[in-house]
């Protein structure tokens, strides 16, 4: 039997909320699939569209950007800029034909270990039937 497709997910987590939330998931021993490799950034507002395009080019099957809920940003308003920027990137990627499910954004607070776990589980579930991302991926 062929091995089940395991999507590769790159997750940009802000240091103060989402990374802390994923830490909490760990502390609470919640379980989620190991498909996601987190990259801690200072703030979701620091995630450049280049990072997202680059992750897809390098073969990510899904990319997640996660930050603090509106109003909770450690840097006061970085996540508001992120929200606007990511909306534009998402629209663009869908317009050029990337499956919309492959690029997601979430708000995960430091207290939301459960939510982080669910976000990752659902992300993996939705990516599995899509198969490998080849649309933006570098030719092998």
């Amino acid at each position, binding site marked *: 039997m062929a091995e089940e497709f395991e999507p590769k997910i790159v997750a940009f987590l802000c240091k103060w909320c989402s990374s802390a939330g994923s830490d909490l998931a760990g502390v609470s021993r919640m379980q989620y699939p190991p498909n996601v490799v987190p990259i801690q950034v200072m703030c979701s507002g620091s995630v450049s*569209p*280049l990072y997202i*395009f*680059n992750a897809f*080019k390098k073969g990510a099957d899904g990319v997640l950007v996660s930050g603090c809920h*509106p109003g909770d940003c450690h840097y006061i*308003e970085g996540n*508001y*800029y992120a*929200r*606007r*920027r*990511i*909306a*534009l*990137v*998402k*629209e*663009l*990627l*869908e*317009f*050029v*034909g*990337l*499956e*919309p499910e492959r690029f*997601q*954004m*979430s*708000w995960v607070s430091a207290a939301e270990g459960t939510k982080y776990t669910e*976000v990752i589980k659902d992300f993996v579930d939705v990516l599995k039937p899509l198969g490998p991302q080849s*649309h*933006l*991926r*570098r*030719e092998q």
Partner: protein
Amino acid sequence: MVNLDELKKEAKRVLEDGKVKYVIGYVKSKASNMAAPAFVTDPEEIENLIWDPTCVQNLTKFIVDEKKRKAQQKKPDTRPVAVVSKGCDSRAINVLLQEKYIERDDVFILGVACEDLGVIDEKKLAQKLKGKRFGELTFDDKKNVVATTTDGTVKVPVKEVLAERCVECQANTPLIYDVFLGEEDRRKPDAPFASVEKMESLSNKERGAFWQEQLSKCVRCYACRSTCPMCYCDECVVDTINFAVTPDTTAQEKALRIKWIERASTKSENFGYHLVRAIHLVGRCIDCGECERVCPLDIPIRFLNKKLEKTAKELFDYEPGMDTEKPALVASFKDEDPEEFIR
């Protein structure tokens, strides 16, 4: 109607007064049916200027050029340059002002109204003429383009061969100018995003296939980048070499320069280039459509910019180049910005 003599008179006046360094306008091209940009320093040569629907180029690009040239000169002539500016081109000037790239005093704007016309699309004209090869183009006073073909002259209403950008134009009258010529006509198109909406109505898969095909044609001649007045970065993400070297730049810093996009014109790199270009222009592209016109491979790149223009309008009520005082689209936010897409 823009009175060409009036335009020449104004251009000549500022040139003769020594008020401007030179006048950037349009002249007839020997090589092409479309006009060519001209840089006039001699008042006598003002006579060669033309204004008709072949004046396709966005001359704002040459204001950027002038700024770069001045930066290289030891004792630059600081007088402004005069530029003939269509409505869309004037929005580009606005963006440059908004981004503090130029000062208002750097440029003397000879605003020309497109009124109910615009510029023509050579390809549409070719289709109208059903493959008949055409030579010189002239325009009669009934707003027809008169083409000389192998079978004599053919008249086509300009409106039927207008460039798509003009059909969907949001500013057919200059928003900023020192001299204004023609009739002010602030019409708004009925369907400013019709072409994008058509693309949007396709399935995600169909769009994917469409772009796979289109972008794989790209030879990365960077004409789209080069013609864009908003692409004024000294160093572009696709450049393979670091231009920002200073005496203290270390070899390691040079070596570590990221190649976000490789030079190979392969599919993934072409996608990378065009995605970055589009996102870089979001909230800045004023839809002069030149990127698409100049593309030798006819890649419909304007779609990408237009799509984001539509998104910015719909989601954030932002229109580029309309207000020079506002913070840029991505350098601002509203509390009520949509977030339904965020989990």
